[in-house]
């Protein structure tokens, strides 16, 4: 069962990487990277069970948070053109 899960995850990672490389927009790459992070997180969890040492879930835990931070940082940078500023300026649009 874990073998099937690992194989499915690896196969999906291929598809996700292809999407991250193809683009065409930046958001496609971002969503692919985000989705890839989820897959890696699942992969680490499953792999811990596969090797019989499921104590390594802490790393998966870190992943589920890091993934979020990186994506939101890129989006914030992309939208406000810097990492520190705050609210919308509605009349910009």
């Amino acid at each position, binding site marked *: 069962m874990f073998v099937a899960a690992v194989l499915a995850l690896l196969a999906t990672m291929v598809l996700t990487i292809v999407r991250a490389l193809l683009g*065409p927009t930046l958001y496609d790459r971002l969503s692919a990277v985000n989705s890839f*992070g989820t897959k890696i997180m699942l992969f*680490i969890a499953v792999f811990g069970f596969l090797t019989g040492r499921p104590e*390594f879930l802490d790393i998966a835990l*870190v992943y589920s948070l890091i993934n979020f931070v990186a994506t939101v*940082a*890129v989006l914030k940078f992309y939208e406000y053109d810097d990492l*520190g500023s705050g609210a919308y300026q509605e009349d910009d649009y």
Partner: protein
Amino acid sequence: MSLEQFSIAVLLTFLAVAAIGIIVLRDLLAAVILTGLYSLIAAGAFVVMDAMDVAFTEAAVGSGISTILFLGALSFTKHDQKPRGNDSWLALLFVVVTGGLLIYGTLDMPPYGSATSPAQTHPQLAKRFIEQSGDEVGPPNIVTSVLASYRGYDTLGETVVVFTAGVAVMGLLGLKRRRPEEELPEHAPGDTPHEPGHDNDRMT
């Protein structure tokens, strides 16, 4: 071929593909995003290679902090790499020849996972760490024991390096925020306001 070997081979292939992608892509922001992807794959591969702590650090530092550092640098500078750079045959030839020589050099290396390689059979270090650290230091994680106790001075030096780097960055950038857009030579005041994104990377 065990599933572990298969996974590691596949993940390493992903890494190579991501690296080639970073070379090929011209858009800098896309390259930074792919660097984040690269770090994620690297950390996954570290987990499969039994290096849990390295994976932990790589996930936090490589995928988190590095991405944000690169983004910060991009937000201070122009963030579209112009389609330039010499894709000359000379550079490619140099890289390929060097890589070929290095690959020739790996033919003498011990294969992956070999228990008789010099790194494993050194008579004192690894064996002692594994056998005695539980009694001598305490924590079940041997890496922690070695990092904080056996090689404590090394870690102290690392901390000094990080501190120095922090001081250097602060000294270089100054503590107050700057907005370099105003003093840009290319963007005259009253120029078109900056649209988020770049047109060459946008589907219409």
